[in-house]
C-alpha cells in the first residue's frame, strides 16, 4: 500500500519558496518512555504573504503542535522525523540554532493563550517591551522610545503610564496587547497566534481581534491562527485547514469551509455547533460518535474511518485520495461526491410548556462585599423568576456579577438582608448552611471545569452515592440502585462508575459532574459555562443531554455562558447583566428579534460568529466599570453610543416592558432602541 503524499496536493498555492510559511509533509513524534508516538503524520499547507490561515480541529489533533513546530519550538521529547518547514524560502527545520534564534527574534512572532505567563511579573512593562528592541540591536534610549511607540500602536490607553506599571496592574486584554506589541518588535512577516483570545471576554476578544486585523493590513504580515472558537477562525481567516489525528483532511477558503464543508469530519463539526439561530425546539445537535484515535496509534487508511457515517470497505482498505474541488480547495475523502448526503439529525427535543408554576423567585436580591472598609455592591436589586422546566440564560462580561448571582442563589455567598428568595412559595435563608434540607437539595450546580469539580481521589460511584445519601437521605442498597439509574440516564457505563475522574475523557467527566448535580433530585440547576472547556462535538452531546434531562425531569436551569449560539439554542429566556444589574430580560426569540438594550446590542455584535461577520460592530470601548465605583445614573452610560447627556448620567433608567415579559432598563424611547446587528457572509449575503 502506498501512502498518498501530501506533496501531491493538486492545488497550486504558488512557489513554496516565496510563501510566508510552507509546511511540507511535516512528520513529528513525541518520545514517551523511549517509544516514539506519532503526533503529526504528514502535514502540508502554505501561507502566502499577508494571508491569514486558520487551523481547526478537536483537542489532540495536533494543531498547536503544528504551530509550535512551524517555529521549531518543540518540547524536549518532540522530534521532527520528516518533511520540512520553509519560511520565506529559508529552511527552518535545517537551520543552525543561532540562525533560528535570530529568525524567531526578527522574522516571526508568537502570541500565546495566557499573557500572564508570557510576561515577567517582576519587571515593569516598559522594560520588557524595550528588551525586545534591545535584542534586535537598538540602544537603550532608542529602545525605550520604540517601546512607547509599540504600545501606542496597539492602542493601549495611556501608554506612557503603562510603561511604568507591572503586569499584575493590567487587565487581561491590556496584557495581550502588550504581548502583541512585543511580538511586533522586529516587524515580523509571520505572526503565530495560539488561542490568543481564549480566556478574554467577548468584547475584549473583539477588540484584540480588531487589533490583529489592523496590524495585519498595516504590515502585510501573514498569520497562522489556532483557535478552538470557530467563530474567531471565520472572522479572522482567509483560509482554513481542518486537522484530524495529525493529518489535514480538508482545506478551503474560510467562508466556503463554514458554509459548504466537504469532508465528513468538517460536516460533523459544523452540524455540532448551535448556529444560524438554531433552537432546541428545532432539532437536537448532531454529535460525532466515538473519539479521535489517541496520539501514537497506528492509522493505515483514512484517519476518520471509525467515526465516519459514509465509511465503506474502500475506506478501510485504501488511503483516501486528495480530491481537488473548485476554487482551490481540497478534501481527503473517497466519497467526496456523497458528503452532501450527510444530514443533520431530525430528532427534536419535544416541545413542552414551561408553564407558570414558579420554582424560584428572586426579589430585590443584592450582595454587597466589604473591602477595606468600603462597600462594594456586586449585585443590585436583582429580580428574576424561574418557571418549572425553564432555562434562563445569563449573559454579560466578566465582572458583571453573573457568578455572584449564582453564588447568592446557592447560598455560597449570603445575600444582603432585605433580599428575598422564595423557593416553591416558601422563603429561603440567605446562607446555604442555614437552609432547610429541601432548599439545599433543590439547588445544585454544574461547574465550568470538571477537573476541578470532581474530587480526583474519589471513584465516580462514591461521588454519586455520597450526593444521593446526603441530599435525599436514601441509604445502602437503595442508594446504590439510584446511582446506577442516574449513571444510565447520563449514559455512563458500569465501567465508568468504578474509575476515578482522571481516567475519563473531558466529556465523560462533565457527564459525571452533571450526574452529581442531578443525583439529589434538584428543582433548579445552575450551569456555569458547562461546555466552554469542551470540544464542539462533545459540547453538542452535553447540550443534548441537558435539554433531554430538563424535559424528562422538568428541572429549571440558570445557564451562564459567553457563547451566544449556545444560549440561543438552549435558553427559553435570557437575562443580560452589567455591573451587578439586570439590564434586560425577555424571551429568547424576542431578544434576538429586538428591540434590545444598547448593551445587549454591543454584546451580541462583539461575539465572533461561525455564520458570518457582523456588518458593523458596535464598539464597547474602555473597561467595564468596577462595582466599587459605579457610574451615576445608568451604569452603562459611559460606554453607550446612544448616551443622552443630562439624562443617562443623572437618572437611573426605568424598567420598560417593551413587549409582554420583555423588560429593558433604558432611557431610550422604545422606537429608538436598537435591534441586533445582522451578520453577513463573505459574498455580502445577509444571514437570516
Amino acid at each position: 500500500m502506498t501512502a498518498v503524499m501530501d506533496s501531491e496536493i493538486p492545488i497550486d498555492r504558488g512557489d513554496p519558496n516565496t510563501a510566508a510559511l510552507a509546511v511540507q509533509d511535516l512528520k513529528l513524534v513525541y518520545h514517551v518512555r523511549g517509544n516514539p508516538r506519532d503526533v503529526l503524520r504528514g502535514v502540508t499547507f502554505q501561507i502566502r504573504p499577508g494571508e491569514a490561515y486558520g487551523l481547526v480541529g478537536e483537542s489532540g489533533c495536533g494543531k498547536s503542535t503544528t504551530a509550535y513546530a512551524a517555529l521549531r519550538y518543540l518540547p524536549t521529547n518532540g522530534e521532527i522525523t520528516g518533511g520540512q518547514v520553509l519560511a520565506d524560502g529559508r529552511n527552518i527545520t535545517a537551520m543552525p540554532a543561532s540562525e533560528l534564534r535570530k529568525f524567531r527574534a526578527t522574522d516571526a512572532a508568537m502570541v500565546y493563550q495566557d499573557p500572564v505567563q508570557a510576561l515577567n511579573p517582576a519587571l515593569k512593562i516598559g522594560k520588557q517591551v524595550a528588551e525586545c528592541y534591545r535584542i534586535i540591536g537598538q540602544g537603550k534610549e532608542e529602545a525605550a522610545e520604540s517601546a512607547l511607540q509599540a504600545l501606542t500602536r496597539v492602542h493601549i490607553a495611556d501608554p506612557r503610564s503603562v510603561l511604568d506599571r507591572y503586569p499584575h496592574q493590567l487587565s487581561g486584554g491590556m496584557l495581550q496587547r502588550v504581548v502583541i506589541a512585543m511580538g511586533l518588535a522586529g516587524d515580523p512577516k509571520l505572526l503565530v497566534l495560539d488561542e490568543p483570545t481564549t480566556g478574554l471576554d467577548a468584547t475584549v476578544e473583539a477588540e484584540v481581534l480588531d487589533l490583529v486585523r489592523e496590524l495585519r493590513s498595516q504590515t502585510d504580515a501573514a498569520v497562522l491562527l489556532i483557535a478552538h472558537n470557530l467563530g474567531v477562525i471565520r472572522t479572522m481567516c482567509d483560509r482554513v485547514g481542518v486537522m484530524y489525528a495529525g493529518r489535514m483532511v480538508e482545506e478551503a477558503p474560510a467562508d466556503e469551509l463554514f458554509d459548504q464543508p466537504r469532508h465528513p469530519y468538517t460536516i460533523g463539526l459544523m452540524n455540532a455547533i448551535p448556529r444560524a439561530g438554531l433552537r432546541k425546539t428545532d432539532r437536537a445537535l448532531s454529535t460525532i460518535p466515538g473519539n479521535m484515535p489517541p496520539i501514537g496509534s497506528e492509522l493505515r487508511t483514512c484517519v476518520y474511518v471509525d467515526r465516519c457515517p459514509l465509511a465503506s470497505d474502500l475506506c478501510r482498505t485504501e488511503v483516501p485520495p486528495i480530491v481537488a474541488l473548485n476554487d482551490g480547495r481540497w478534501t481527503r475523502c473517497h466519497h467526496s461526491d456523497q458528503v452532501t448526503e450527510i444530514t443533520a439529525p431530525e430528532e427534536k427535543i419535544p416541545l413542552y410548556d414551561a408553564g407558570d408554576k414558579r420554582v424560584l423567585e428572586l426579589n430585590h436580591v443584592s450582595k454587597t462585599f466589604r473591602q477595606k472598609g468600603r462597600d462594594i455592591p456586586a449585585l443590585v436589586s436583582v429580580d428574576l423568576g424561574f418557571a418549572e422546566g425553564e432555562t434562563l440564560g445569563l449573559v454579560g462580561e466578566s465582572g458583571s456579577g453573573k457568578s455572584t448571582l449564582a453564588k447568592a442563589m446557592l447560598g455560597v455567598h449570603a445575600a444582603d438582608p432585605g433580599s428575598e428568595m422564595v423557593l416553591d412559595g416558601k422563603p429561603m435563608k440567605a446562607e446555604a448552611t442555614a437552609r432547610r434540607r429541601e432548599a439545599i437539595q433543590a439547588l445544585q450546580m454544574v461547574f465550568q471545569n470538571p477537573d476541578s469539580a470532581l474530587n480526583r481521589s474519589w471513584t465516580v460511584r462514591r461521588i454519586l452515592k455520597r450526593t444521593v445519601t446526603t441530599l435525599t437521605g436514601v441509604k445502602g442498597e437503595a442508594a446504590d440502585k439510584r446511582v446506577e439509574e442516574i449513571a444510565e440516564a447520563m449514559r455512563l457505563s458500569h465501567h465508568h462508575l468504578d474509575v476515578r475522574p482522571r481516567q475519563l475523557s473531558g466529556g465523560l467527566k462533565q457527564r459525571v459532574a452533571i450526574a452529581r448535580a442531578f443525583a439529589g433530585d434538584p428543582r433548579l440547576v445552575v450551569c456555569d459555562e458547562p461546555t466552554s472547556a469542551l470540544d464542539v462535538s462533545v459540547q453538542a452531546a452535553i447540550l443534548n443531554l441537558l435539554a433531554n434531562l430538563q424535559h424528562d425531569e422538568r428541572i429549571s436551569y440558570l445557564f451562564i455562558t459567553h457563547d451566544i449560539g449556545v444560549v440561543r439554542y438552549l435558553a427559553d429566556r435570557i437575562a443580560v447583566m452589567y455591573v451587578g444589574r439586570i439590564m434586560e430580560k425577555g424571551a429568547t426569540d424576542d431578544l434576538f428579534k429586538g428591540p434590545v438594550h444598547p448593551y445587549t446590542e454591543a454584546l451580541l455584535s462583539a461575539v465572533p460568529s461561525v455564520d458570518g461577520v457582523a456588518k458593523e460592530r458596535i464598539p464597547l470601548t474602555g473597561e467595564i466599570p468596577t462595582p466599587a465605583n459605579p457610574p451615576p445614573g445608568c451604569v452603562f452610560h459611559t460606554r453607550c453610543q446612544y448616551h443622552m447627556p443630562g439624562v443617562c448620567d443623572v437618572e437611573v433608567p426605568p424598567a420598560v416592558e417593551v413587549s409582554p415579559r420583555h423588560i429593558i432598563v433604558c432611557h431610550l424611547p422604545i422606537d429608538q432602541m436598537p435591534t441586533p446587528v445582522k451578520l453577513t457572509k463573505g459574498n455580502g449575503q445577509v444571514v437570516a
Partner: protein
Amino acid sequence: MEESNVVQDQLESEVQEPDLVPISTAPALDRKSVRAEQRRELFRTPSFLIGLFIVLLWLACGIVPEVFARYPELDPVRVDGQVIPRAAPSADAWFGTDGTGRDVFSRVVYGADNVLINAPAAALIAVALGALLGLIMGYYRGWVDEIMSRIMEAVLSLPVILLAIMVLVVFGASRLAIILTIAGLFTPVVTRTVRAAVLTESQLDYVAAAKLRGESGLFIMLREILPNITNVLVVEFTVRVGYAIFTVATLAFLGLGADDVTVADWGTDISQSYDLVKAGQWWPSIFPALAIAILVIGVNLIADSLDKVYKG
C-alpha cells in the same frame, strides 16, 4: 517541558473512552491506577533505588546489628589478647578503634538504631500534627489562620537546636522527650507546607460542591481534601526524616542523647572522639559522621524522587 508533560499526561493517564458509543461496545477499561504507574516509575528512577538501598542497609544494621558487626558493641577489640586504643584502620579493625579500643566499624553498625527510631518517629508525629493544623488553617482561613500563622512564625524564627536544648534541659533527655521535642519543633514547617496545599485544594470546585450538599467542615477536610494531599504529606515526611536525623545526632553530640554514653550512638561517639582529630586520629569521629551523612543522603534521594514522580 510544559507541553511535553501535557502530552505525556494525555498518553499515560487518560484512558481513551469513546464518548457516545453504545455502552455495550465500550472497550474494557484499563484499570491501572495512577499510583501503580507512579510506583513503577519510582522503581525505574536510579536515584530512588540508590536511596532505597542505603536506607534499607542502615535499617538492616539497626534491626540485626550482630549480623554486620565484627565485634561486640561495648567491649574493646583484642589483638593477641591486647587492647589497642586509637588504632588506625587496618584489616583487624576496618575503621580503626576508638579511645577505649572499641571497633569503630561495629560501633557505627550498632549506633544506627537510635537515629533510625527517633528521627522517623519525630517526623511522623510532626507530619500528623502539621497535617491537622494545616487543614484547619487552609480550610477555614480567616482569624483562625491569622492567629495560628503568627504563632508558627514566632516558633520558626528561633533556632531549632537552641529551643530543643532548652526544652530537653528542663524535661530531661529521655527518648520520648527527644522525639516529642523534635516533632514539636518541626510541626510549624510542615503546617506551612500543608496549609499552602490545602489553600489550593480549597479553591477547587469539588469543595464548593461538597458545601452545596451541606457537608460538615470536618468531612470536607478529612474525606474530601486529605486524600488529595497525601503526596505532599509523604514528601514532607521523607524530607523531615532527613532533617530529624541531623537534629537527633546533633542533640546526642551535645550530650542530649541516651543517658548511657557507652551505648553506641553516632552523635555521642563523635562527641567523645572529635578532639582526637587534632592529634591526627580522625577515624573514631569521621566514620560515624559519614554514617549520618550517608543516611541523610539516602533519605533525601528518596524524598527528591518521590517529589519528582508526584509532580511529574
